[in-house]
């Protein structure tokens, strides 16, 4: 699923490791999320949305 994680992270000048720490996941997880090849669970998606103070739909796009 496409997402804006990389952009949102760059806007805040965070490294993948910074984002991983804030989400309490591994850096591998952040990397897999950013490639769009791994879709997060609903709880993790909400955590991401809350961290960036945006709705899940504005961060993740589920169109083909």
């Amino acid at each position, binding site marked *: 699923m496409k997402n804006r994680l990389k952009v949102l992270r760059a806007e805040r000048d965070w490294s993948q490791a910074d984002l991983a720490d804030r989400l*309490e996941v*591994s*850096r*591998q*997880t952040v*990397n*897999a999320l950013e490639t769009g*090849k*791994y879709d*997060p669970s609903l709880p993790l998606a909400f955590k991401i949305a809350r961290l960036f103070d945006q709705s899940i739909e504005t961060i993740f796009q589920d169109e083909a």
Partner: protein
Amino acid sequence: MRQPMTPPMRRYLARFVPAMLAYVGVLVGSLWVIRHLAPTGPLLWALAVAPAVPVIAVIAIMGLYLMEETDEFLRSVLAQSMLWGIGVTLTVTTAWGFLENADLLPHPPLYLIFPLFCASMGLAQPLVRWRYQ
């Protein structure tokens, strides 16, 4: 890109290493007693099956890690790798069985099946991870 270990990974290692040391100790001890003291009856049964106990503990330790890992991506990679391990193990043992039926292959000791599962799961892990790069 080696990652720092998550706390469940550290717990896994803290359980796995003693279990493997116990396995070596029990295996050597059991073989020695069987060979040199030639026990019979229930004692022989108990001694013969003893090395399986730490191996079963390792299986449980792997299951515990899968349950305790809180990182959902790492858990997903491990679960998929385990499925690959199961698939490879069932494929190899099924094919082997039929080849053995035709006297083309010898009968292997069944305790080699778990190492076969571990090896194929281990080989699958980097491949599964690579799919998310």
